[in-house]
């Protein structure tokens, strides 16, 4: 019997302290009321157009498919003391990661100190030699970071938070955090008068403040824009939402052009200079002259303006070197190296298949481990040992043996569950948490983050592209 940890139930008869009043309320709700609330939520999400596009899928009339991300009515509740600890840990971790990226593109002290092997950095496809020696405002590279955290059950029945993954390039999902809260307040206003739930609605304000703080030094009143790949991108709703909430222009590559080493946007009143670009576009697509020449999403000449310090890109180019799964195992050591502190948040113990001993162990224990492609994302390219068939394991073994350096492995964590409203009623489902950490002149975040939930019974995959849903996340105030 694998250990399990439920966020609400300490055991069958005991509800955890911080869930008590919610659970009392929930037990008084007739199931049909909850059902009709859920339908109401779905209708509102559709009317508001809170959808994501599914790549490749088409409706019968040929237009792109827009889907709702399933929203679960039962919140994930985090007690104040747990959040305080987590917040300190996030602050520490993101600060160290930013120091690491700066170091990689400058003096590379961490390599000289023998902590991170040089080839782990230079052979990484996300390493951008174009960034060597480039100074960015405040020395901050990842202004918006999404850190994926899970709670895993220990054999004694307690739970421990682990960082599963750092997302330092273009993390998404924050709009769902905000919309889920709005939805909960609309559906269940009485709940919020009974619980002291820390507010999150000021996130766009903090984001704008962060973006303005990292504008090129010479600019007094910076013009900030949000660069989107366009309305057919899966996260377009979020791009439009954040631009609107911040009151900044939502631009596409075709709206921008470079002249005399500055970036301008085409407006109805002529060209207007742009100082900060919150880009929701991967490095590869930013500038066809520097990266992928076939990209029509970016702006030709952008990199040279950026290197000259005449525009800020947020996040910076080349942050991917630090959120790769092959770098992940080194983060605790980074924290000690740059900050001289003990890491507050734990890493999941990780086997690096590039190491002979680790590989040996992993090959012997495939059926117990989760093996991940170093560059994979979105829950693709991974093997969940305990949930896989013999054939799947055999296939994966071949791939792993052919390219050990491309994989890491971790013990199968028993992710915590949270009561979730599913077809058969209320049942436990596995969840994770993505808090969003903003780094400008200071490090800031709103309490909580996006809780994703694997709606399929027993599933550990929370990604929306693979049947995941979301929940509102409540951090209770002390």
């Amino acid at each position, binding site marked *: 019997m694998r250990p399990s940890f439920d966020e609400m139930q300490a055991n069958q008869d005991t509800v955890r302290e911080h869930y008590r009043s919610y659970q009392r309320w929930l037990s008084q709700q007739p199931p049909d009321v909850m059902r009709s609330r859920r339908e109401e939520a779905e209708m509102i999400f559709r009317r*508001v*157009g809170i959808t994501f596009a599914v790549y490749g899928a088409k409706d019968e009339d040929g237009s792109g498919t827009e889907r709702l991300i399933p929203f679960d009515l039962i919140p994930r509740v985090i007690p104040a003391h747990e959040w305080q600890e987590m917040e300190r840990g996030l602050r520490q971790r993101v600060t160290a990661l930013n120091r690491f990226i700066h170091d990689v593109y400058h003096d590379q002290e961490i390599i000289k100190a023998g902590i991170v092997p040089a080839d782990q950095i230079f052979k990484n496809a996300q390493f951008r030699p174009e960034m060597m020696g480039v100074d960015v405002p405040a020395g901050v590279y990842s202004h918006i970071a999404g850190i994926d955290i899970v709670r895993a059950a220990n054999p004694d029945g307690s739970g421990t938070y682990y960082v599963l993954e750092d997302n330092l390039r273009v993390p998404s999902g924050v709009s769902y955090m905000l919309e889920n809260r709005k939805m909960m307040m609309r559906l269940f206003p009485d709940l919020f008068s009974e619980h002291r739930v820390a507010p999150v609605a000021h996130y766009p304000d903090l984001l704008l403040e962060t973006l303005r703080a990292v504008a090129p030094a010479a600019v007094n009143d910076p013009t900030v824009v949000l660069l989107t790949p*366009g309305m057919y991108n899966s996260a377009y709703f979020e791009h439009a*939402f954040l631009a609107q909430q911040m009151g900044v222009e939502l631009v596409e590559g075709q709206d921008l052009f470079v002249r005399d080493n500055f970036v301008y946007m085409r407006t109805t*009143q*002529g060209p207007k200079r742009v100082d900060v670009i919150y880009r929701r576009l991967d490095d590869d697509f930013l500038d066809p002259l520097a990266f992928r020449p076939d990209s029509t999403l970016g702006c030709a000449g952008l990199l040279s303006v950026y290197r000259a310090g005449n525009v800020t890109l947020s996040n910076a180019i080349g942050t991917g070197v630090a959120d790769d799964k092959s770098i992940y195992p080194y983060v605790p050591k980074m924290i000690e190296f740059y900050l001289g502190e003990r890491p507050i948040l734990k890493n999941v113990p990780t086997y690096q298949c590039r190491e002979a001993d680790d590989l040996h162990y992993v090959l012997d224990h495939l059926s117990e481990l989760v093996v991940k492609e170093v560059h994979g994302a979105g829950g693709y390219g991974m093997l969940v040992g305990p949930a896989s068939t013999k054939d799947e394991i055999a296939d994966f073994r071949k791939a792993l043996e052919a390219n050990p350096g491309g994989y890491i492995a971790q013990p199968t964590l028993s992710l915590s569950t949270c009561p979730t409203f599913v077809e058969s009623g209320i049942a436990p489902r596995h969840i994770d948490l993505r808090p969003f950490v903003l780094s400008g002149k200071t490090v800031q975040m709103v309490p909580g983050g996006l809780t994703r939930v694997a709606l399929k019974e027993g599933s550990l995959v929370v990604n929306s592209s693979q049947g995941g849903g979301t929940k509102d996340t409540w951090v209770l105030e002390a």
Partner: protein
Amino acid sequence: MLSRTADHLFWMARYMERAENTARMLDVNYQTALLPQSADAAEKGWKGLLSISELTGDFAKRYGSVSARTVMDYMVSDAANPSSIRSCLMAARENARAVRGTLTTEVWETQNQTWLEFQRMVATGAFQRDPGAAFEWVKFRSHLSRGVTVGTMLQDEAFHFLRIGSFLERADNTARLLDVKFHAVENEYFGAVQAQSQGNAKDVEYDFYHWSAILRSVSGFEVYRKAYRNVIRPEKVAELLILRPDMPRSLAACMNEVVANLRMVANEQSSETLRRAGRLRADLQYGRIDEILATGLHAYLTQFLERVGTLGLGISRDFLVPVEA
């Protein structure tokens, strides 16, 4: 404001207005078809409707014979017809979605809801069951869209480009309606005026329904009575729909709005476009219906449509897709 944003706003408003006017014309034809009339006249009505939108050829190729059913299908729910109500509502919604951050939540939700609801109405057969109610619904969604825009949007550039789109499209649509209704059937109905002097009561009655149908299609029947307190006469109908600045769907009223909003967004390169718009408006302001009729209504409206088209191109060049760098 971004040029691309202005472009989306302009077209969002145009498509919504076009959906409304298509619904208006379909509605009038549908109502008229309920009157006792020859099959020939009914068919002429549906043909006229296709020719207003310059779709006669495309329709013939895809559907063949003209009937109430086929034209309605083609103009309401045909995804392959770029002027169908479906295509217009979808285009309006897609344009809105591209700039949803520029719109107020209410404006966006109105556009989105209209599109979702429309799809539902087509799928459930509501349009076929009661076309009259469905056309009425399209009109009201358009009213709502404009009302929500005026009621919630900051009166900045975004607002002005929306208004320019609405009124330029309306000017175009009203002119087309007039042209087809007067020109295509000119002989027959002006013939009826002569018949009146010969005391042919049947024709006079028929005439009344024809002109009142035109007025109804632009919500102008009661307006006409109020403005003229007289029997319905073709030249007065033309005057009302072309020259009366207080009639909200007249060419004069539309051009007043276009000019006023264009002035608010003027930039360094737009002076020629503003001059053209101002001149077109002045022609309407100082025009007289007897002169227009004397030179020929069809020629006049053809020229008007050309000038509106040129104006649209100018707006596009000066504001929406500027060439630079």
